[in-house]
C-alpha cells in the first residue's frame, strides 16, 4: 500500500464516476440527462454552506445525531480480547443509518423542484426512512418492494403506509430487492420529469455512490472525533456489515487515508459461500459485471445472468455491492470477509445478552466477525463496529429460526 500522503484514497470517483474500473453511468439515454443534472445540483449543494447547515440542523434535531460511540464493556469482557466500541446508529430516528442519506437526497430533490419521490427497499428500512422524510416535507412517496419482502416485513409495510407512502409489491422477475430496483428504474424512466429516485445504498449510476457515501460519512466523521476524545488515538480496526455497503462506506470513508487503521467489511454468507450460491457475498463469491447503472462485483452465472442472493437478512439480500467497495477490495485497502446466517444469529443473541442491545440482523454479521477476531487480539487493540440498525424489525425472523412460537401469550419453543 502506498505510504505517501499524496496518494489519497479519498479523491474518487473521477469525472466519469469511476473508482478505478468500477462505477460509471450505465443507464438508458432517457435517464442520462437527469443523472447529469443531478450531478450538477449535487456539486452545487456540496459547496453550499447553507445546504450543510440545513443537514446539520436536521441531523441534530430530527435524527438525533451525533449517535453515541459506546464502549461495549459486556462484549469486551465476554470476548476477552480487544476493546470494543459500538457506533450507535441504531439509535437514529427510524432505527437505522438509512435516514442520514435520505435527508440529503430529499433536500436535493427539493432544490431540483421534484415533487414525487420513489425508492426501492428490501427489509423496509430505507423505505421507512424515505416515507418518513417525505411525510415531513409533504412530498408524494412511492416505494417499490419485492412481493416476497412485503410478506415477510409486514410491520415495515404498515409503517410506510401510516406515513402516507404508497407501497408497490414487485412481482416482476423473482420479486426481490434487485427486482424492486428494476421497477423503480422503470418508474423513473416513465416519470422522469417530476420524479426523484432516492437510492438507498452506495450503488447505482454516478453520482449516487459518491453522493450516498458523502451523506453517510457523518458516521465515520463522528466516530473519529469520538474515539479521539475517548482514547486519544485512532482505532486499530473498524468493521461494518455490507449489503450494498452504505453504512460501511459511511464509517470507512473518513478513515481511508489513516493507513494504520485496518478496515474490514462483512458480507452476508447466507448458508455458506460455496458453489450453490446461497449467499450474498458479491466480493468473495462474485465477479465484475454491470447492473443498475454501475460496474461492480456481482453474483452472476457464466453467461452474465444475475443470480439471486440468499441471506437471513433482507437488508443484505442484494447480488451486488457499491463500486467503491469493489475498488477498495481490488487495491487491498479494505479487507472483505463473509459471515453465515448461523454465525449472525449467534451474534444477535450475544448482543442481547451481554449489552442489552437488540441489533438488526445486518450489524449482527459485523458483530459475528468481531466475535471471531476480538478474543485473539490484545486488550489495547481498539475496534469500532458500526451498529447500523436495531433489531425490532427482525424479531419475527429470529424467533422462527430459533424455533420460538410467538403466537401465544407465554411463547414456547417448538420442535
Amino acid at each position, binding site marked *: 500500500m502506498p505510504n505517501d500522503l499524496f496518494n489519497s484514497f479519498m479523491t474518487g470517483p473521477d469525472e*466519469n464516476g469511476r473508482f478505478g474500473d468500477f462505477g*460509471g*453511468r*450505465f*443507464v*438508458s*439515454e*432517457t*435517464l*442520462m*440527462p*437527469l443523472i447529469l443534472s443531478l450531478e450538477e445540483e449535487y456539486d452545487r449543494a456540496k459547496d453550499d454552506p447553507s445546504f450543510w447547515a440545513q443537514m446539520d440542523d436536521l441531523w441534530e434535531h430530527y435524527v438525533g445525531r451525533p449517535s453515541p460511540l459506546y464502549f461495549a464493556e459486556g462484549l469486551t469482557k465476554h470476548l476477552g480480547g480487544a476493546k470494543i466500541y459500538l457506533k450507535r446508529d441504531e439509535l437514529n430516528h427510524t432505527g437505522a443509518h438509512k435516514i442520514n442519506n435520505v435527508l440529503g437526497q430529499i433536500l436535493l430533490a427539493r432544490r431540483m423542484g421534484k415533487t414525487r419521490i420513489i425508492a426501492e427497499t428490501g427489509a423496509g428500512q430505507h423505505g421507512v426512512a424515505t416515507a418518513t422524510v417525505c411525510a415531513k416535507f409533504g412530498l408524494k412517496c412511492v416505494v417499490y418492494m419485492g412481493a416476497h419482502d412485503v410478506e415477510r416485513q409486514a410491520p415495515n409495510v404498515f409503517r410506510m403506509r401510516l406515513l402516507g407512502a404508497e407501497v408497490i409489491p414487485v412481482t*416482476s*422477475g423473482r420479486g426481490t430487492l*434487485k*427486482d424492486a430496483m*428494476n421497477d423503480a*428504474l*422503470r418508474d423513473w*424512466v*416513465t*416519470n*422522469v*420529469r417530476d420524479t426523484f429516485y432516492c437510492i438507498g445504498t452506495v450503488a447505482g449510476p454516478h453520482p449516487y455512490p459518491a453522493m450516498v457515501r458523502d451523506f453517510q460519512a457523518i458516521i465515520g466523521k463522528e466516530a473519529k472525533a469520538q474515539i479521539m476524545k475517548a482514547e486519544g488515538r485512532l482505532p486499530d480496526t473498524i468493521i461494518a456489515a455490507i449489503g450494498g455497503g452504505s453504512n460501511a462506506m459511511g464509517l470507512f470513508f473518513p478513515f481511508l487515508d489513516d493507513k494504520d487503521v485496518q478496515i474490514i467489511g462483512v458480507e452476508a454468507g447466507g448458508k455458506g459461500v460455496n458453489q450453490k450460491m446461497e449467499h450474498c457475498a458479491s466480493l468473495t463469491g462474485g465477479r465484475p*459485471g*454491470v*447492473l*443498475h*447503472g454501475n*460496474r461492480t462485483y*456481482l453474483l*452472476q452465472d*457464466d*453467461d*452474465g*445472468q*444475475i443470480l439471486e442472493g440468499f441471506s437471513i437478512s433482507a437488508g443484505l439480500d442484494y447480488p451486488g455491492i457499491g463500486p467503491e467497495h469493489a475498488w477498495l477490495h481490488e487495491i487491498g485497502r479494505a479487507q472483505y470477509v463473509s459471515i453465515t446466517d448461523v454465525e449472525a444469529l449467534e451474534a444477535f443473541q450475544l448482543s442481547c445478552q451481554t449489552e442489552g442491545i437488540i441489533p438488526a440482523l445486518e450489524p449482527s454479521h459485523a458483530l459475528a466477525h468481531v466475535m471471531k477476531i476480538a478474543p485473539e487480539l490484545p486488550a489495547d487493540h481498539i475496534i469500532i463496529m458500526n451498529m447500523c440498525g436495531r433489531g425490532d424489525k427482525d424479531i419475527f425472523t429470529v424467533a422462527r429460526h430459533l424455533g420460538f412460537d410467538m403466537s401465544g401469550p407465554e411463547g414456547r419453543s417448538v420442535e
Partner: protein
Amino acid sequence: MTRIDDTFARLRAEGKKAFVAYVMAGDPDEATALEIIKGLPGAGVDIIEMGLPFTDPMADGPTIQLAGQRALDGGMTLEKTLATARAFRETDQTTPIVLMGYYNPIYSRGVDRFLEDAKAAGIDGLIVVDLPPEEDSELCIPAQAAGMNFIRLATPTTDDARLPKVLQNTSGFVYYVSITGITGAAEAQATDVAPEVARIKSATDLPVIVGFGIKTPEAAQSIAGVADGAVVGSAIVKLVEEGKPVPEILAYVASLADGAHRA
C-alpha cells in the same frame, strides 16, 4: 457498407419506409423463435431486431420481461442467441439483424470475443440499452472498429444541447424512443413524434426509426409516415406469450409491415 446501410439505400430507392420487428431469441423456445425469425423477411420485415435475454431488463415493460424469462428458463444463452443468428444466415444473406439487449452478458463474455463471434454469426448492429455515449469506450468504439453498426437511442429527454453527443458515434440508424417510459407501455402519437424526428434529422443524415408504444398497423403507418420507419416489439411478443401458432404471428407481422410500407 453494412447490410443495414444497404437496406436503407434500397428502401430509399423504392421510396419506402422501413419496418423493423423485434423478437426475443429463444422465446418461447429456441426452435420456435428461429422459425419465427426465419419467417420475418417473407412477412415484409426490413430489419430484424433480435432480443438478447437478460435477467434484469430495466428499460422493458412486462411483455418483454416475461419473454426474456421464458427464454432463460428454457436455457437460452448468448451463445445460443448467436447460434440463432447463424442459423438464420444460412437461409438469408441480406436482411440485417440488430442484436438488442443489455451490456452484462456481452461484458461477461468479453467485448473482443463477443464482437468477433457476433460478426461471424452475421449480426450487423447492436443496440445496448444501458450504454449511453458517456460509456462509448466500452463497446461502441470497438464495435464500429469491427465494422458493426452501433445504434443509439435518442429519447424525448435528449435535448438539443445533448443531441450531438448522442449522434456522434451512432451509425446505421438512430432509434428514436417515442415516449419517456418502458417498452410496450403508453401509445406513441404521430403528432408528438413528428417534430422530434424533424429535430433529430436536422442534426444527422442517418435514418431515424421510431419505436416504443407502436401496437397496430395503423399506428405503424402513422408513425412511419413522420419518420424513416417504425419498430414494433411488445405487440408481436405478446402473441408469442399467448402461444399463437407461428403462421398467425407472421400474418400479424405482415399486417404491421404493410401498415408501415403504406406510409
